[in-house]
């Protein structure tokens, strides 16, 4: 076998890793299912992948980790038939294959689940699953009953309770993700590629997903799991491969690695996680009393002090973003009140919130946070233009100087402040969004999933920035589905469940178990390990 990976790695058979051997999979676990040999890919001036090799075995879950720009997505797209490599070969079950387009990838049994579900919202669950290959009767008419039965059987097998006749619109992100996986498995996939499937999921949805992925592995599917969350790699995966700057760095059994190892391989240097600095807590800045918005949240009350980071944990759909939208004037509350510095707030629009001193870094930075083909400068100054130039005329030098100040302070990696933000990496884009709001000199900064989809290096940077901002006297509300992040960053954690605050936990008492317990609707008490993760999706009927 002349395809040993580039760096000096310790490739071992997963069999000698204790505790992860599957019991009786269809295929021998050591058999090579997919082999990528010496693949390179350039996009014009940029080398996305350089001489990369990777082996996926039947019946293993293989993690692919690396920072943004490391080449993970490029490899996924090559395997999905979206990109064609410039050189190198791909072998499937020992046979060399060409994957010129996504249809071929599907026919070869390579199924890809993307980060964001790409479903048809107005079609039913069953129709989405069998869209490309519906069961037909004579004359090509679709057999609806059979399709529904097949879909129901598939979800049954996955241990998921979903109404296969329901339309996809209105289903949670998590359920949509499961439909994507069902769709992938419906074609008897030999290789299942999951491209950051968990970035939009809450902890217990992640558990459910993992159970399904494990079941797929036990059926002999080779799973490639692309993720930013290292704890998931350790929980789920058998082996891990690290890419950095388009090159293969290491492939090793997960049992032989530590988090520190992985981080070091990913960034090429040692990194300390979550540098939360202790800051003096000041006066109450923002106070929310009995705030309600029908269908979103009810009777929400909390306070944010100067210098304090208040974490907001909860499952997706618990009402966290909805509260943020009211605090930023996008939606209006139906009852309750908000006070800033003791004065009542009436926020009819984001401009009103901005004037009051509230800033919001939205969840979806491409849709709401940035204008992608504006320059860094134009994005940073957009909210404050009327304040900056009261006589209408824009002075480019003034705004560029202002933007450069924030770019330096937040260490945005860019060639100049005139660079378009679409050319920046995810982490640097997020820093531009934060810069934009810092330029407004807010008193309260609300961050909604600020590190979703950014790489480890940038994540640490964002944490550093948020910590410094709190130390400078801002009140910060941190909404995040990343539990370790919330636990590490927050002075106090509010946990929401179905639109209500179910727990308020001070930093010293916070633990993952307590937060998750409250987030699933329990109020206090011990261990929640009981029921398996394969439990129903939105039944919620626990005693």
């Amino acid at each position, binding site marked *: 076998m002349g395809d040993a990976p580039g760096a000096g790695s310790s490739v071992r058979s997963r069999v000698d890793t204790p505790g992860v051997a599957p019991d009786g999979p269809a295929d021998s676990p050591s058999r090579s299912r997919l082999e990528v040999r010496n693949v390179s890919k350039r*996009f*014009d*001036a*940029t*080398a*996305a992948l350089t001489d990369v090799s990777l082996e996926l075995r039947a019946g293993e879950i293989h993690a692919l980790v690396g920072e*943004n*720009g490391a*080449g993970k*997505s*490029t490899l996924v*797209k090559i395997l999905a038939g979206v990109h064609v490599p410039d050189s190198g070969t791909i072998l499937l079950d020992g046979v060399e294959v060409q994957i010129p387009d996504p249809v071929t990838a599907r026919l070869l049994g390579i199924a890809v689940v993307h980060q964001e579900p790409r479903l048809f919202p107005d079609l039913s669950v069953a129709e989405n699953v069998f869209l490309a290959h519906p069961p037909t009767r004579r004359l090509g008419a679709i057999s609806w009953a059979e399709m529904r039965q097949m879909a129901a059987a598939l979800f049954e097998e996955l241990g998921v309770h979903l109404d296969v006749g329901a339309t996809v619109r209105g289903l949670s992100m998590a359920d949509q993700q499961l439909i994507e996986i069902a769709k992938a498995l419906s074609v008897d996939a030999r290789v299942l590629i999951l*491209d950051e499937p968990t970035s939009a999921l809450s902890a217990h949805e992640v558990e459910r997903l993992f159970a399904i992925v494990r079941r797929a592995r036990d059926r002999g599917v080779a799973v490639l799991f692309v993720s930013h969350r290292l704890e998931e790699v350790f929980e789920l995966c058998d082996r891990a491969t690290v890419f950095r700057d388009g090159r293969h760095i290491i492939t090793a059994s997960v049992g032989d690695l530590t988090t520190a190892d992985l981080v070091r391989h990913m960034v090429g240097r040692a990194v300390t996680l979550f540098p939360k600095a202790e800051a003096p807590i000041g006066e109450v800045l923002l106070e929310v009393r009995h705030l309600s918005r029908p269908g979103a949240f009810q009777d929400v009350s909390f306070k944010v002090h100067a210098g304090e980071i208040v974490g907001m944990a909860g499952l997706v759909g618990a009402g966290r973003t909805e509260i943020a939208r009211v605090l*930023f004037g*996008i939606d209006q509350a139906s009852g309750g009140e908000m006070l800033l510095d003791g004065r009542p707030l009436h926020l009819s*629009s984001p*401009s009103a*919130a*901005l004037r009051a001193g509230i800033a*919001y870094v*939205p969840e979806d930075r*491409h*849709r*709401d*946070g*940035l*204008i*992608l*083909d*504006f*320059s860094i400068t*134009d*994005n940073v100054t*957009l*909210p404050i*233009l*009327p304040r*900056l*130039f009261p006589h*209408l005329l*824009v002075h480019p030098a003034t705004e560029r100087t202002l933007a*450069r100040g924030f770019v*330096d302070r937040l*260490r*945005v*990696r*860019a*060639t*100049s*402040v*005139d*660079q*378009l933000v*679409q*050319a*920046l*990496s*995810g982490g640097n884009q997020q820093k531009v969004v934060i810069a*934009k709001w810092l330029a407004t000199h807010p008193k309260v900064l609300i961050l909604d999933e600020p590190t979703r989809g*950014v790489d480890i290096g940038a994540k640490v940077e964002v944490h550093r920035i948020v910590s410094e901002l709190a130390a400078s006297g801002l009140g910060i509300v941190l909404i995040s589905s990343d539990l370790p992040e919330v636990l590490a960053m927050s002075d106090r954690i509010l946990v929401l469940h179905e639109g209500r605050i179910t727990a308020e936990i001070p930093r010293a008492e916070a633990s993952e178990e307590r937060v998750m317990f409250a987030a699933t609707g329990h109020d206090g008490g011990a261990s929640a390990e009981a029921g398996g993760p394969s439990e129903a999706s939105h039944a919620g009927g626990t005693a």
Partner: protein
Amino acid sequence: MTKERAVAAPESAPVSPAVARPWAHPSVLARWEFFLVLILGLFVWMGTRVSPYFLTPSNFANLTSAMMEVAIMALPATLIIIAGEIDLSVESTLGLASAILGFLWAAGVPLEVDIPLVLAVGGLAGLLNGLLVARAGLPSLVVTLGTLALYRGLAQVVLGTRAISDFPSGFTAFGFGTVPGSPIPWTLIVFAMLGAVFWFVAHATWIGRQVFAVGKNKDAARYAAVDVAALKTALFVVSGVLAALAGIILTARFSSARGDNGSGLVLTVVTIVLLGGVDINGGKGTIPGVILAVFTLATLQSALNLAGVSGDYQTVAVGLLLIVSITAPYIARQARTVIGRVLRARHPPPDPVAHGEVVG
């Protein structure tokens, strides 16, 4: 999906410092304007081949004054299209303005009172469009298609089939007269002043920046505290007022106020805006490009007139120009990508664009 955008889409990354202010002067459109100058030159050359009369001062006065109403309406239309909306109702607002002006004048109300009233009516017509689009959230294509019919209907209710034509000579001279001792029509001076104002607003003020921001991503603009609804409403109001002004000018030029004045002009307005390089999907375009397009189209129409081409065929020409101006930028972009790829393959740049160094 888009996390590795920097790697996945390097073609769109800015390379040259010439694109430093892309919201104001995208390089594609800078080239588009250059292209427009070439077409304009070609049409002038065609005109001189067709008739010796083409390059005379009086023909210049004719060809420009015939175009000034649509030119004035094209200015706010440019900003509306950049903001991602469209206003099809302008030609009917023009007709309504003309009808009300005629009605009031025939009723004995002096012009000093009529004109401000008519402009106010235009503003109200625009306000209705703006409220339906920006506040009620209806698609502007449908709203202004509806008011296109509504305002035309109102114009015909006001004046019936009558034509009012006994306007004072001072007023009609404003419509087709020129500045004494020159071939410059008075209306061209009005357009030049408005053009300068729109140029300034679109490309040098933050109002213009907000218009581009809304057109590129209205959600992000809203989250960035841009009052999207107020901005759009204001654009429609300005569009209505200037359509009414165009109605006054047309009435003066024809010495005739009629309810059906200006029928079909919206096709020309949209053609000018798109020929000027404005993206029909919003977010991109320049005022100078649109001003160039005004003269390009005026020259073409004059050349066709002098060549004896009938009005029907001229409409065919305008339609073709509209199609060409929508497709040409896409073709040009494709060509640029291919040429760029070939050049880069021959001379690969030393540093990848996507992984820039730290600023400062």
